[in-house]
């Protein structure tokens, strides 16, 4: 390992560490941070890295591969079946619609061969799974109607890449292709139809070997109880599948996705997820830095009008096609705007398809490079488009940030603010309302906001981590703030902002589980309510009752257990740091369980008081 590697690593990591927090501070997504980091260190700004940016890209594309593996893992076949209408309907409409419109426009105005146009149209129709999913997660929109639709469309695109990559070689079957250009693929010497056959056979082979070989091997590895060995097997699995796919000339990402789906129902799902996730995050970051670095500004400067106009037009085409689909599926304006802007970029699969076609000589080099620059720019544009939508477009067409219909109500501020009105928050809201306490609600699901306003709730629509929104909702005058957002990270950042800017607020915070609670305790949050504690204890109390325990005694045991557990969690939260276990991985969670169970053994719950118990008295009398 020479010094070059270290210097490279230092440059990449430093740029990421500098740029991503700045982007976050400015309220932009982390993807933009990575992209800018890439642009800064790239050949056109600081020039720290030169052409090796492309090599890095190849390496970092592996982040996309891992992301698809994780998407595959998440994909419960049952859920897939339930979403099939959306996946097939919305997905095919989007892909075919966008591709056809782009194809027709290009054929009308540009003098490209039809093969070139088809490839470009298909490449640009695909959106960026990485950008969209990351954005959905960060904005906490995954569970909204647009989140689910976006996921459906992306999934269709991910799957559609398989046939697209299989079809592209067929388009050149007639023309003269230099076999040397295709050395990446073992099977490129064969006829096109045999290639297609081999591709299909490989996919089937991946499916069956996953069932018959991988799962038994993982079982064996799990028995050794060596965590790092399991991580190694997980990595090996992903790398091997990717390699296999590359051998037959397919995208590694698809192989990984397939492998993920095969393993989605195995008992190792969560462990694989936990092991691969950190690699994915890091490599994906690297991927975006690579995208930033590989934007060829020279090409843009040479022909800026073509690149900008073409980029704008294809983004607009994708936007309007998506908007039309959204209208067809009767989405509300807000959801539809988010959906259409969110998916309007081209994505990492575009790079894959373009470089694949370049090898097949379907695309001239310069055009391919221009297209890559356009894709990179469009990926860069999405966060800004969403920001523009949020600030200027959506407020006019969609649900308003605050409800202006009732002017008389606006001045009067509620004492309670509830952020997040999902199942958890709404229960709180209903209880308060039943007691004549009206709360101001912050929520970012426009459909829900609409409904709540109709029901007469005072609702602010938007991202609760935005200081202006908090101020507008009256955080300065409120007494109690209830942080009940589904996404624990968003919830935590809301709490942090509140503590900094509104120190007078009494903050009550929802925590999904023990791990969330630790996180909150670390940040000095005081009033923490674990969803999984009270309900579980309640159920446990009922179980004791069904086993013949007296209800009152069981209830008291439950109350005691809650007190004990709430004290224990604070003790353990402090202890946790002694072991430097900051990341709550699967392994840590099991250790945590072990610790808890051990501690429980030392506590004799029943001995903690003697109320109404005459046992001792009787003993003394008989002595």
């Amino acid at each position: 390992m020479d010094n070059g590697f270290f210097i490279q690593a230092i440059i990449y990591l430093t740029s990421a560490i500098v740029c991503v927090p700045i982007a976050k501070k400015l309220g932009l997504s982390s993807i933009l941070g990575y992209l800018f980091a890439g642009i800064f260190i790239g050949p056109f700004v600081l020039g720290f890295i030169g052409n090796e940016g492309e090599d890095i890209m190849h390496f970092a594309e592996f982040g996309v591969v891992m992301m698809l593996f994780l998407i595959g893992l998440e994909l419960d076949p049952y859920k897939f079946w339930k979403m099939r209408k959306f996946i097939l309907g919305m997905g095919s409409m989007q892909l075919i619609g966008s591709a056809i419109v782009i194809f027709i426009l290009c054929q009308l105005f540009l003098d490209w061969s039809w093969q070139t146009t088809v490839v470009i149209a298909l490449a640009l129709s695909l959106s960026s799974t990485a950008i969209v999913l990351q954005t959905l997660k960060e904005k906490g929109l995954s569970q909204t109607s647009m989140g689910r639709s976006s996921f459906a469309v992306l999934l269709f695109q991910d799957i559609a890449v398989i046939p697209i990559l299989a079809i592209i070689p067929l388009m050149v079957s007639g023309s003269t292709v230099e076999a040397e250009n295709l050395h990446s693929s073992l099977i490129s010497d064969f006829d096109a139809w045999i290639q297609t056959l081999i591709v299909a056979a490989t996919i089937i082979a991946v499916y069956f070997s996953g069932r018959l070989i991988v799962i038994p091997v993982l079982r064996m590895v799990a028995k050794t109880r060596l965590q790092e060995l399991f991580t190694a097997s997980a990595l090996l699995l992903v790398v091997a599948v990717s390699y296999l796919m590359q051998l037959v000339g397919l995208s590694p990402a698809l192989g990984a996705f397939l492998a993920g789906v095969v393993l989605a129902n195995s008992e190792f799902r969560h462990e694989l997820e936990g092991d691969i996730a950190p690699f994915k995050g890091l490599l994906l970051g690297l991927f975006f830095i690579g995208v930033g670095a590989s934007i060829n500004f020279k090409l843009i400067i040479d022909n800026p009008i073509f690149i900008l106009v073409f980029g704008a037009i294809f983004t607009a085409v994708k936007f309007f096609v998506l908007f039309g689909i959204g209208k067809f599926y009767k989405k509300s304006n807000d959801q539809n705007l988010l959906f259409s802007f969110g998916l309007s970029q081209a994505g990492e699969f575009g790079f894959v398809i373009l470089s694949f076609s370049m090898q097949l000589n379907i695309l001239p080099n310069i055009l391919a490079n221009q297209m890559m620059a356009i894709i990179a720019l469009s990926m860069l544009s999405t966060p800004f488009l969403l920001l523009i939508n949020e600030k200027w477009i959506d407020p006019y067409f969609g649900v308003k940030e605050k409800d202006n219909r009732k002017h008389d109500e606006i001045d009067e501020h509620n004492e309670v603010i509830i952020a997040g009105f999902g199942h958890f928050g709404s229960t709180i809201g209903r209880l308060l309302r039943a007691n004549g306490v009206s709360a101001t609600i912050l929520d970012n699901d426009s459909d829900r906001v609409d409904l709540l306003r109709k029901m007469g709730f005072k609702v602010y629509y938007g991202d609760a981590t935005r200081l202006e929104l908090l101020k507008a909702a009256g955080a300065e005058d409120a007494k109690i703030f209830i942080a009940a957002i589904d996404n624990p990270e968003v919830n935590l950042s809301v709490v942090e902002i509140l503590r900094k800017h509104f120190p007078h607020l009494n903050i009550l915070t929802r925590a999904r589980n023990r791990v969330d609670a630790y996180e909150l305790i670390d940040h000095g949050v005081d009033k923490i309510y674990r969803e999984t504690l009270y309900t579980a204890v309640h159920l446990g109390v009922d179980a004791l009752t069904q086993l013949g325990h007296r209800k009152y005694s069981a209830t008291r045991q439950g109350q005691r257990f809650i007190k004990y557990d709430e004290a224990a969690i604070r003790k353990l939260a402090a202890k946790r740091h002694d072991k430097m276990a900051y990341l709550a991985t699967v392994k840590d969670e099991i250790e945590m369980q072990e610790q808890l169970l051990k501690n429980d053994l030392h506590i004799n719950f029943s001995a903690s008081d003697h109320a109404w118990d005459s046992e001792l008295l009787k003993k003394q009398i008989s002595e």
Partner: protein
Amino acid sequence: MPQNKILILFAHPLFEKSFVNQELVRHIPFSNHITFHDLYEEYPEFDINVKHEQNLLEKHDIIIWHHPMYWYSCPPLLKQWIDMVLEYDWAYGKNGNALNGKSIFQVITTGGAKENYCATGKDRFSIPELLEPFNQTAKVCKMNYLPPFVVHGTHKMNEEEVFNHAKTYAELLLFLTKNEINSEEINRNFYMNEWFLKIKSNG
């Protein structure tokens, strides 16, 4: 012959550890005229359903507060029951006549011996004296408060004695369902136990 319906409001926070009360309850006869109502089992979280309790009361003629004596009073849930169920304008007050004329008495267990419960004893007061607040509560609700059925000395009681008390309790309950209550006669006794012993020996 008129049949009295009896409602036993049983309150024991640690029933599973009280052998005496388990036996007393086990001996309660199965009868359409006797309703056994285990308050701690029904309301472990003290969230008493007042309407339901009032309906129960309205359907019965004789009410029994069955509970151990704790700190010269009843367990907390029974006090909660009294506070919540005996509502103004229902149980007492000018229009509160729901309980008017019903009979009520207590079934009490105490750890200490009977001798302790007198002016010269350790507990300084007799059981009826200590139960005055309950008596007065019943009076305010226009009920007919009868002397208590008391099982003393549970701390040092052998099994046979326990069974005897339990059997007597059962017999008393059956007797009360079948016979008209003669309050004047019963009130001449210190404890319900004494009166019932006399009845039994008279045959």
